[in-house]
């Protein structure tokens, strides 16, 4: 469960960039919440604040009731982060990449290896487990990065543009896996600027534009609210311009 309340963040001094200006929303457990917005809408900054990597200027964010500024370490144990850049270590094998993060989360020995085996099996990554990350395809790297984000069995998963650079088949695998996680009662927060992704995956959509929440709701709700025929028209109506939204 993620609760974000009037969160603000700006970068720089005099000519500050207001990345996030007063965002409020909630992402409940057992649902996939999508952050949809054009490039530069503040999605990454928002996710980084929830992931305790960036401190908010004002407002608050809580993960499972724990504040991200006062309970940093607690929050970090409860979240899994899949950043835009997969950031695997190219010289380590898929398994070693995941094992490293498992150790940082306090997991050890056989229990950790068994956990990695299970994750790789569900993700269909068992054949590549002993291959170096440098030799993996984009889709395979994504699988390893997901396994790494899930190694400590976090209740909350933050995914920043997880489908970037993936082929259709890999996107499909990802989608299925995220649905499974939702079925397990996890809280999933997913950011994307690709409309179709969000529409196909998310139960609830938070539309961001220029650092503000423009609309929140399910797909039919958004369409109805904008009085448009489909989601794309609805979004363009809500955001004010089609700029930055990939078709």
């Amino acid at each position, binding site marked *: 469960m993620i609760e974000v309340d009037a969160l603000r963040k700006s*970068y720089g001094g005099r000519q500050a960039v207001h990345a996030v200006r007063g965002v409020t929303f909630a992402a409940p457990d057992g649902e996939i919440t999508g952050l949809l917005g054009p490039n530069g809408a503040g999605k990454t900054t928002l996710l*980084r604040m929830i*992931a*305790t*990597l*960036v*401190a908010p200027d004002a407002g608050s964010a809580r993960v499972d009731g*724990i*504040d991200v500024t*006062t*309970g*940093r*370490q*607690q929050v*970090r*144990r*409860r*979240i899994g*982060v*899949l*950043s835009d*850049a*997969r*950031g*695997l*270590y*190219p*010289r*380590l094998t898929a398994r*070693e990449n995941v094992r*490293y*993060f498992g*150790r*940082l*989360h*306090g*997991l*050890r*020995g056989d*229990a*950790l290896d*068994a*956990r990695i085996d299970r994750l790789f099996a569900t993700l269909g990554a068992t054949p590549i487990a002993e291959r*170096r990350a440098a030799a993996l395809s984009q889709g395979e790297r994504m699988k390893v*990065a997901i396994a*790494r*984000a899930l190694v400590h*069995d976090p*209740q909350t998963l933050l995914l920043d543009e997880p489908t970037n650079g993936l082929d259709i088949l890999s996107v499909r695998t990802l989608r299925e896996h995220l649905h499974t996680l939702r079925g*397990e*009662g*996890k809280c999933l927060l997913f950011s994307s600027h690709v409309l179709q992704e969000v529409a196909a995956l998310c139960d609830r959509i938070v539309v961001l534009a220029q650092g503000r929440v423009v609309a929140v709701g399910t797909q039919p709700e958004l369409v109805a609210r904008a009085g448009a025929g489909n989601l794309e028209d609805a979004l363009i109506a809500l955001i004010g311009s089609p700029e930055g939204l990939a078709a």
Partner: protein
Amino acid sequence: MKAGSETTFRHRAGAHRTRAGNSSLTLPSASRTFAILRKELLETLRDRRTGVVTLVSAILAGPILLLLIFNLIASQAERARDLALPIVGAEYAPAIVAFFERAQVRVSAAPADYEAGIRRGDLDVVLVIDERFAADIAQGKPGLVRLVFDRSRDRARPAIDQAEALLRAYNRTWGEQRLALRGVTSTVAYPLRVESADLATPQQSGALVLFLVAYYGLFASVMGGMAVALDTTAGERERQSLEPLLATPARPVEIVVGKWLAVCAFDALVVALTLAGFYLTLAYAPLPAVGVPFLFGGREFGRFLLVLLPLMLLLPAILLYVGSRARAYKEAQANVSVLLFVVSLIPVVQLFLQRREPGWLMFVPVSAQYSLLNTALRGEALALSQWLLSWTTPALLVVIALVAVARRLGRESILSGR
């Protein structure tokens, strides 16, 4: 947390404390630091190309350098032993020529373009006898002989010295004979008797070799950790693996200490291999016998490692700091060349100053180590107090550098390109 099958795996003690703890109040975790150290070492060992190049050049530095130097010394000694002296105008002073021949000097007629020959390095030294030599002597005037050489040529120096010494000896013998004819003892003309007593111990005579061994020891402690330190900081940032890492419970101080220990380990390995190269070459290689009873044995090897220990901890910390300030590996490499320049320049400056070293030198990293290395190489005992003093500044700087890197990792700007 979801209960059920996943709760079976073991968590680190205290990982699930319910009270939200501020990250700055809890102690760093040794197990996370160790996990980071382990991963960095594994990653370094996997980087075959960098690893092989670093290790091979470390091992080969000693043998190659020593071989070159010993051959240089040997060839100089040879040149001094059998001096070849081309003479212009040998017919004007046959007595001088005969004197040189008696001293086992290979005398020959100089080619017409002897000056060009000296400039090219084909000839070391040429003796020119003035055509009015015999006439001047007969009139009681000093006879003119001229030695032509190029002193900037190191190789020629022994030959030049030898030719000068022989001419001086001839001059003196001739003078003594003239005095003897007049019934005067030679002490009238030469009241001084100069005797030289060289107090250099056998180890001290190979000064150039000493300098190079010390220099390479220092150099290895910079080069050894460089690739790893930059890869683990600037490289990690460039590959964008830093963001997921920072989102784990691993805290900046744990990350920095883990990485630092990994770099130190590799640095120590490279230093040890470099010194081992020198040790093995001097102990077993068939080096030309040049009369440099130079000593770098097991004891010196151990002392070297002890002296370099503060640097093996300090330089990795500084390299990590330099690396953490760069956005990419290449940028870091450019910045690190400044550090390399300073470290390699200090011993050279010290070599040329040749003054008695002031006491505060022990507080200057690199300088202190260079001075202690020289002490060890001269076969003198290392003073424990000096060694402990040489730790002061490095220890302080290690803490400052590591705190600075940890603070950089804690900053938000590390995630962006700024």
